[in-house]
């Protein structure tokens, strides 16, 4: 850039504001720093929500890594898979969320399909360690438990029509928790069955709608939720999947 052009730029108020070259100038930088600036992250709550799934992942990874390397020790083979798996299941029970499912190693395909090109990097990383393994019936319990909780929540939500704004906020919070688990299971082979996958997709939609309910526009938004529940036959389909035995359903 010539000195003249530089001089012109420096005297252009827009360039002063937007920064023609590299860094943003002070006024705009300060304003931009406040763009979508959120408060403190809910660190503990987020970790509590993902810890069981993380432990399941790591357990599976340890098992797969040892198998692939052929260096599995007798001690490791004896306690790592079962100890960690039991710990993961216990954590799932304690936290009351059905995370984990049958998260076998073939999940990369599902992730890539759902997340489209935007998740290329993550999906590519996952696929490197992927190979399908047989389903583990223990994880069916996790899926059923989650569906049982979701059914109970949706029934309670329907029954709460006309409730005050506080109830709406609680419903939205509960829906968000269930939505997280729903999405995790959607990404896992636990929902490989076509009909189950479709049910989870519908649950994702409905839970997302409830999660975004606001007290101010409650009525109109709620109608949309009710309409989605009815149009998609969500509750009847849930009932066909979730056993009536509450123990079996884990509710």
């Amino acid at each position: 850039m010539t000195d003249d052009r530089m001089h012109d730029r420096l005297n252009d108020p827009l360039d002063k504001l937007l920064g023609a070259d590299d860094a943003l100038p002070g006024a705009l930088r300060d304003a931009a720093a406040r763009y979508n600036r959120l408060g403190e992250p809910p660190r503990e709550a987020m970790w509590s929500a993902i810890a069981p799934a993380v432990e399941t992942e790591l357990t599976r990874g340890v098992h797969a890594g040892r198998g692939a390397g052929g260096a599995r020790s007798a001690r490791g083979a004896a306690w790592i898979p079962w100890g960690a798996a039991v710990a993961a299941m216990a954590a799932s029970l304690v936290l009351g969320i059905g995370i984990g499912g049958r998260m076998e190693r073939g999940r990369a395909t599902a992730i890539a399909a759902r997340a489209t090109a935007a998740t290329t990097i993550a999906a590519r990383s996952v696929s490197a360690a992927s190979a399908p393994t047989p389903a583990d019936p223990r994880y069916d319990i996790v899926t059923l438990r989650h569906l049982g909780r979701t059914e109970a929540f949706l029934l309670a939500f329907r029954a709460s029509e006309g409730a005050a704004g506080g109830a709406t906020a609680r419903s939205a919070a509960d829906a968000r928790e269930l939505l997280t688990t729903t999405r995790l299971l959607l990404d896992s082979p636990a929902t490989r069955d076509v009909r189950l996958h479709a049910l989870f997709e519908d649950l994702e939609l409905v839970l997302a709608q409830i999660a975004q309910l606001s007290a101010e526009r409650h009525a109109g938004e709620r109608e949309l939720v009710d309409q989605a529940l009815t149009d998609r036959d969500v509750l009847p389909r849930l009932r066909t999947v979730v056993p009536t035995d509450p123990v079996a359903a884990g509710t």
Partner: protein
Amino acid sequence: MGSQPFRPPLRLHEHDADTRFTLRPALRLDDQQLIARVLGGDMTAARTLYDAHVDAVYRVAGRIVGDPELARDCTQEAFIRAFRGLRGFRGQASLRTWLHAIAASVAIDEARRTKKLRARELELDEADAVAMGGGEPDPELRTRLAQAIDALPEIQRVVFVMYDVEGFTHAEIGSALGIPEGTSKARLSYARAQLREALADCVRE
């Protein structure tokens, strides 16, 4: 598992709006050690990794989706994906960049899915400005800028946010979004041009 006590790594990155992020190779050994521990099934190490990066991941997601609850969902999903894919992480980029790449991808996906951008309420902004005192940026400028950023095409908005707001380099953005560095620069240039146009009257007044 992990008979030796794990030594948490130094906090790797501090964010400062005035400082461009740089990779610090001397600290990457800590990343490698941490990753090795995590892949060994050490949940304490997993938590350490989470603690070291959760604030920044949440912030990146939040900048893109603009909603605390969505940011929370995105952060959780980003970490799940990260732990799931950690074995495939080869260190081509720093762990931080890799995590932010996942966070950005998840958040972009979420923003596209929900098409929900945070509503801009001038009254709230004005109230903020009053509460925060005279040292804060011009509230009208903040609001106008936020609206203008929201109005950018998604691909430009993300680059602008990552570069000008979050302090990524073009190399890091390219790595995160899977685009050439030059494309990142071009998108930033387009974004700035549009912001320039949108804020023109703000300056001429």
